């Protein structure tokens, strides 16, 4: 009789992760194709449309890059908190607060010159997002309330607050009842890089990404973060500033998501409206985990998952597939990568049972 045994590998496979990722991607697309055919749509054509829409042409890649900006910023923040085992699921709400903060400045000080107004909007967005991250951090530290629940509930509250503002006090009186704010003044708009449709936010992303990488690799605080995240008890024993780290991580996390909200209203929508909430905050969690919390990989994964979103839009346009198809694929990819992680650390050995 044969018996399968599970054995821990001495060294995790180094190249294995990329391999696993592509298998996971293939598996998820396969299940997606089955779902398409269940709906009576040609599956192969669907997958082709998905890729074509995402990366098939120059403008498609541009679209994917534009969408990658908010995902990248939110995900960087999420990854930062995950490193400390703070399960911050609140990027969505922090992003909403950022959009609100930026809009508040844009609507109240439209006449300021751009080099004053834009930093002001950025600051307001970061502060608002940061506060939304600070609340769960303080509750966790002071009375040990579960941060998963608090950040999640704050998402709902933030989104509802945004809705309240655009349906109520901030609604444009000339919008024929549509829930949108007046358009921002030209000074409140982040411009595009000449010759492209990409806004300057993408440069900001690159800068922040480099800063984060340096922070993790070369600073003491970054090292402490790593130690605390990996072994909390050892970190406490070594008197690492756990409370300070939690607060810092959550505030920076919120500020990053907030800045994503600022870029989205300022550069892409030019006003605040409910469609600003596109679920980037949740996609950011998928991205952070796929990228194993590494800033560079987060960049790549953001681009891929942003491409998935753009591709699904193409699919929606051409075949009438609901946009939720993208969420299905995201969930499937994450689940299969989670399952695949097993094969990095363990191997199956088949032995004759004696």
């Amino acid at each position, binding site marked *: 009789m044969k018996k399968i045994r599970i054995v821990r590998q001495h060294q995790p496979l180094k190249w294995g992760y990329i391999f696993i990722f592509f298998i996971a991607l293939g598996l998820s697309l396969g299940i997606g194709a089955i779902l398409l055919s269940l709906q009576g749509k040609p599956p192969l054509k669907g997958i082709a449309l998905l890729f074509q829409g995402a990366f098939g042409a120059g403008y498609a890649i541009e679209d994917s890059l534009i969408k990658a900006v908010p995902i990248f910023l939110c995900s960087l923040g999420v990854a930062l908190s995950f490193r400390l085992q703070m399960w911050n699921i609140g990027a969505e709400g922090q992003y909403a607060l950022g959009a609100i903060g930026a809009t508040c400045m844009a609507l109240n000080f439209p006449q300021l010159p751009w080099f004053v107004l834009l930093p002001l909007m950025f600051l307001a967005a970061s502060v608002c997002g940061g506060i939304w991250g600070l609340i769960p951090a303080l509750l966790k530290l002071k009375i040990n309330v579960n941060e998963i629940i608090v950040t999640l*509930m*704050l998402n709902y509250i933030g989104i509802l607050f945004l809705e309240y503002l655009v349906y109520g006090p901030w609604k444009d009186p000339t919008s024929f009842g549509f829930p949108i704010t007046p358009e921002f003044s030209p000074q409140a708009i982040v411009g595009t890089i000449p010759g492209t449709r990409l806004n300057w936010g993408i440069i900001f992303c690159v800068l922040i990404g480099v800063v984060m990488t340096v922070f993790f690799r070369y600073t003491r605080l970054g090292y402490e973060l790593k130690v605390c995240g990996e072994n909390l008890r050892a970190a406490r024993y070594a008197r690492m500033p756990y409370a300070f780290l939690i607060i810092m991580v959550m505030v920076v996390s919120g500020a990053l998501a907030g800045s994503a909200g600022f870029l989205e209203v300022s550069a892409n929508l030019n006003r605040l409206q409910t469609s600003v909430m596109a679920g980037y905050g949740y996609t950011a969690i998928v991205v952070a985990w796929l990228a194993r919390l590494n800033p560079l990989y987060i960049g790549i994964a953001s681009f891929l998952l942003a491409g998935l979103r753009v591709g699904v839009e193409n699919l929606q346009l051409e075949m009438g597939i609901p946009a939720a198809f993208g969420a299905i694929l995201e969930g499937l990819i994450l689940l299969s990568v989670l399952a695949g992680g097993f094969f990095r650390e363990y191997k199956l050995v088949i032995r004759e049972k004696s």
Partner: protein
Amino acid sequence: MNLDLILALLAATIQSGTPILYATLGEIITEKAGILNLGVEGIMLIGALAGFLVSQSFGSPVLGFILGGLCGAFFAGIHGCICLIFQGNQVVSGLALTILGTGLAYFLGTPFIGQSAPGFSKLVIPVLSHLPVIGPVFFNHDILVYISYILPVVILIFLNKTRWGLRLRAVGEYPQAALAAGVKVILYRWIGVLLGGFLVGLGGAYLSLAYTHLWTNGLTSGRGWIAVALVIFAFWHPLRAILGAYLFGGIMAFQLRVQALGTNLPSSILLMLPYAMTIIVLSLSYRKGHLSEAPASLGTNIEPEE
């Protein structure tokens, strides 16, 4: 406010709290076995959609309800596979399950938006419903509500008095000790995940079959997450879950009524109530320091044997 209005509000509280109660009880069982399943919101949606579709196609809400629960169990089984076989991170797996479940419910449910399905109708209990106050509040509902009155007691007895229940709890507290005592640890964790998923699925099916009778997108509107929070609020105790579920049922019912009455308060602000209350209630319950009630090995995987 006159008495009739208050009674109607209390009755609505029970009805609105029932799906939350099912989901909370399900998650309590799962967490007692040591598995943290954050997929409740997704599982509820799947249960709601499955229940709705089955009831619509076969004309039987009972069948829909049961299959809603079974689909919930099946869906929770994905989480079981990730955590119990593949040693995946329980937090992330649960989140992935919610993302997948929400996506699937939107994707498959979109063609049915606004359509109705045969649901459960009221089953007035002969004598009890004539009792003053208690009658109209507690005994003027559908049968699923009455089941939910008994369920917490059944679960309490199961967890504390039966051999299976005690083993399930042991597996959530000290899996190594349970293993040494000859308990099939993985089996009992599976039971926790599947049974819990079944109850969460029932909670979802309640929403589409008894609460609304029609399909809309985002039917659960965060109830699954509130259920996860209520497990902590209830200190993993089935009877305290009743209190929490009706508290939130009350807030949701109140918020709906106030909106219907047409106040000056904007609906978005009212809708915030349950979510803000969740944070406040959780903070208050943490103050009492009952955290030690949590299953000791909640959220940690069992290493496969070498």
